[in-house]
């Protein structure tokens, strides 16, 4: 096994780990509204979301192609660059997770890719037009579309069912939420799992396993990515569920239905044109729209502001982290030693962070 193959194996394992953290981190986006309106129990919601995330990953490959060819010069990408991008994205995901902020895993990944490519080859290897057209503009527009669709939907819904018995209406929309939540999970799998597929395929091209001219995603890559995101979703992220589901706004089932439907249609429409959207952005836009249409004061704008700040920070922060990781990896030369050392450090750091989150009393003893 050559040094390149060793790095490739590490990259694939890191990509799978990223996909797992993506599912883990984004579980909130998919299930929070269903749980907060009691449309479905937490365990069932997470299990259903996990299954549909897996299925959704097989629906489309357009987003994977955008990740693989749309943002950076494929010829400038090496397996070490992909590795640094993934580590930068994972580090940012873990930091935002530890603070309970639902920032975007997708933007962390793309930010990481851009940062590591700049560190390795300079800014000329970045496709600025592609970043603007396929990432930044859709990233700004998609939550606004979800906001408008959810807001207009809830106005239509209240107009039609406004004078009916609230109990019966709530039961009806809770049933609807099982379907709209399912569609949201499916759309999440469709868009998010493809980002990992794109990155693994980039690494395969960089290592010479796939010709650069014939970009295609191998079936095993689709299966591995689908499994990792589904497992991550199943494992869940309870802290973030609390932020998205109840801290932004207290919802009724009709609002939950409107928010989830808006999120699902925006993500599916984006997947069909190849945009790697953030499901976090979109569903938060939907939730805020559904809340603001009923009562502007019902939305806790301070929490929404914290989330927006995390979004704005994500691209540059992940890019800086990936660039630093690339620099550290390069200190060990161009062989497999750098990625091996950094992967080891990442594993230890992640284990320490998770242990601190699970057992805070052990990590920071009581002061009283």
């Amino acid at each position, binding site marked *: 096994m050559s040094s390149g193959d060793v790095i490739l194996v590490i990259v694939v394992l890191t990509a799978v780990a990223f996909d797992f953290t993506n599912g883990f981190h984004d579980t909130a986006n998919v299930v929070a509204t269903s749980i907060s309106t009691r449309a479905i129990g937490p365990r069932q919601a997470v299990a259903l979301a996990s299954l549909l995330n897996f299925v959704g990953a097989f629906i489309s490959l357009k987003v994977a192609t955008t990740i693989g060819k749309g943002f950076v010069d494929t010829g400038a990408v090496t397996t070490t660059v992909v590795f640094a991008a993934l580590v930068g994205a994972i580090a940012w995901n873990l930091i935002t997770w530890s603070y309970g902020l639902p920032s975007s895993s997708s933007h962390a990944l793309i930010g990481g890719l851009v940062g590591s490519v700049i560190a390795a080859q300079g800014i000329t290897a970045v496709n600025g037009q592609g970043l603007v057209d396929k990432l930044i503009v859709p990233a700004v527009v998609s939550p606004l579309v979800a906001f408008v669709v959810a807001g207009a939907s809830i106005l239509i819904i209240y107009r*039609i069912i406004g004078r009916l018995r609230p109990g019966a209406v709530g039961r009806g929309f809770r049933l609807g939420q099982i379907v709209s939540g399912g569609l949201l999970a499916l759309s999440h799998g469709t868009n998010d799992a493809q980002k990992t597929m794109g990155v693994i395929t980039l690494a395969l091209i960089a290592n010479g396993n796939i010709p650069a001219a014939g970009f295609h995603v191998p079936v095993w890559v689709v299966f591995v990515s689908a499994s990792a995101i589904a497992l991550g979703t199943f494992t869940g992220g309870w802290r973030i569920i609390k932020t998205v589901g109840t801290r932004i706004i207290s919802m009724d089932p009709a609002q939950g239905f409107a928010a989830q439907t808006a999120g699902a249609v925006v993500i599916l429409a984006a997947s069909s*044109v190849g945009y790697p959207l953030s499901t976090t952005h979109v569903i938060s836009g939907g939730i805020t729209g559904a809340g603001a249409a009923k009562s502007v004061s019902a939305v806790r704008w301070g929490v929404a502001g914290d989330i927006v700040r995390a979004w704005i920070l994500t691209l540059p922060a992940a890019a800086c982290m990936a660039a630093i990781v690339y620099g550290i990896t390069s200190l060990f030369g161009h062989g497999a030693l750098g990625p091996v050392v950094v992967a080891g450090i990442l594993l230890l750091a992640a284990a320490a962070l998770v242990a601190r989150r699970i057992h805070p009393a052990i990590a920071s003893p009581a002061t009283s």
Partner: protein
Amino acid sequence: MSIFAAAALIKMIYSSIIAGLSVALVFSIAVFGVIRSSDMRRARRPAASARYATLGMLALLASAAIAIAGLVLVIHRS
């Protein structure tokens, strides 16, 4: 932004708006039909109950049809 990129973005926007509002409208009619059918049955008005039940069922089928058609379109385009 290039014309091609703008066209894809506009397509995403109008697809989302049409699909989202259609599902909300049709599913609300389904909930309305089912609840009014139940109210009419309690009021011992079977003909009105049947009419509302039919409306509710048709709207429910239409909701399912829109969701399935949307998914088929996404798969087809991909």
